């Protein structure tokens, strides 16, 4: 029960912080604009097959962007705010609290999917059918979880860096491309596809497209397993890395340094 309480503490704190500073969810304002760009390209080219991708893309972009943003800033803010040292004096798991906080913003950013769908419906008059609603919910859940797991790993990796925003900016577009977020992987050069398959988003994007479009979704089990499995691997790596980093902070007395 204790791990769940720590996870819940992170979720509730982040929810309160979002209420205090809603600008954290600014991506929900920009997501419809990205939707408009992608949909206008798909609709003007008559590529109806790409409409679903144009709706899913901005949602996945928003999710990754917001998870990356909090991952990059979280621990440095805790250090600068003098809270990381206090945290070290508690028996709680830092990874779980970080995961809870990232999970809260990831779930909130899911609204971007709904926004995209509405932009398509009312902005472009295109109805994207939701053929398998249950599978869509599962796909969204797995995407939010794996995004949070991966961002938790990044937050640990970023903690000792002083150029967080460089990493943050550098990791956005490559992941959009390699994750098949902007265009399906089939549109990428063949030699890039194995690299893409290491990125959890590529499996999640496939799963979402399948759930929306396919009459008979293919390889759903594989998509779910890989999407969730890669995320879980990232979480396990995060737990180990966080333990190592916290030991280093205790040894080097750097927890309180900004």
């Amino acid at each position, binding site marked *: 029960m204790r791990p769940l309480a*720590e996870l819940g503490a992170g979720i509730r*704190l982040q929810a309160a912080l979002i209420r205090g500073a809603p600008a954290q969810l600014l991506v929900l304002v920009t997501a419809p604009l990205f939707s408009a760009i992608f949909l206008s390209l798909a609709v003007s080219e008559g590529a109806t097959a790409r409409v679903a991708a144009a709706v899913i893309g901005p949602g996945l972009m928003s999710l990754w962007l917001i998870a990356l943003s909090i991952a990059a800033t979280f621990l440095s803010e805790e250090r600068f705010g003098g809270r990381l040292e*206090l945290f070290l*004096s508690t*028996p709680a798991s830092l990874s779980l609290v970080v995961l809870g906080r990232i999970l809260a913003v990831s779930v909130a950013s899911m609204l971007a999917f709904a926004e995209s769908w509405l932009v398509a419906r009312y902005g472009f008059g295109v109805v994207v059918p939701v053929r398998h609603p249950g599978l869509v919910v599962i796909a969204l859940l797995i995407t939010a979880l794996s995004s949070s797991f991966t961002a938790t790993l990044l937050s640990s990796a970023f903690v000792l860096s002083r150029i967080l925003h460089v990493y943050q900016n550098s990791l956005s577009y490559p992941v959009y491309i390699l994750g098949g977020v902007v265009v399906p992987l089939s549109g990428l050069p063949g030699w890039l596809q194995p690299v893409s398959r290491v990125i959890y988003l590529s499996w999640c994007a496939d799963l979402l497209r399948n759930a929306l479009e396919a009459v008979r979704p293919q390889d759903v089990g594989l998509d779910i397993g890989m999407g969730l499995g890669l995320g879980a691997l990232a979480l396990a790596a995060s737990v180990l890395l966080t333990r190592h980093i916290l030991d280093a902070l*205790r040894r080097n*007395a750097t927890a309180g340094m900004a």
Partner: protein
Amino acid sequence: MWVPEAGRARGAWIERGRDVLAVDVQNLTRRYARTRRTPEVLALDDVSLQITAGEVHGLLGPNGAGKTTLVKVISTVLLPSSGVVRVLGHDVVQEARAVRELVGVVFGGERGLYTRVSARRNLYFWGALYGLRHREMESRCLALLDRVGLAGHADVPVETFSRGMKQRLHLARGLVHEPRVLFLDEPTSGMDPAAALEFRTLIRELTNEGRSVLLATHDMAEAEALCSNVTLIDGGKVLLSDRTATAAGMLGVRECVDFELADEDLVQLLRKQPFVASVEPSAGEGGVDGRWRALPVAPEALRELLGWLVERDVLSARRAEPSLSEVYLRLVGARGLRI
């Protein structure tokens, strides 16, 4: 097993069937490694310290003396370089998690809180990290906020709080899991005098409940009022560790003489007398209005000192006891703003 009252003997808790000290520091050394910009620093040098159950132990020393480093090592925030530190019998390195369940930490300053959320939300968050259940947390947080005078501000964002209010919230945060040992680092900095007095009452209540407190402070009056024992450190070394009431014995005398004298030449002359150890401006007065405190070289020299002053018509002379401040100043030295 914690036996709060009946089972306690000789200032120790019975833990795992044996008597243990609240805090037991033995030969602790902590080095800060050399970096590209800074040389290696020996922050704590062979420090030993014991705190018993229900004791308020004052940790005194100038800026950079090693007080905060010591508190951080005991509270598992820092690893020791060498030596052994135990809290209620648990080693801070080998049994860090057990130690963290037992201790509460309040670092001084305004940092350490989530300023965009309310005081209540801050306490809920930190309480959850110690495994408090929601219903228990609700009642405990409200009681704590009431105890530190913030009940009326429970749902107000912390960013609107004054420094003193933040300090009170820090204290509530440190108490949220009802720790058996509390480490307070400059807990009254920023508090107004009335709040600081109330804080002293709170600390006494905590010790009456059987908790032990390590209080790192610059405020000698606070240390004298609250602490049964004090440890003075400087340059990472323990200069003095004694009962507060008898710490003045370190100066070699139990009594001194306070007097008023405007003639600086006469003060200089007094300083040269063989029965005088020192003549300093009275603590807190700065000597600007001619108030001085003279320490005799030995208790038997007190009469000679008084006689010398009376012979020179200094009729304001009266016997007094050296304060903790004087012990501090004597041992640490007059270093001004140097660290």
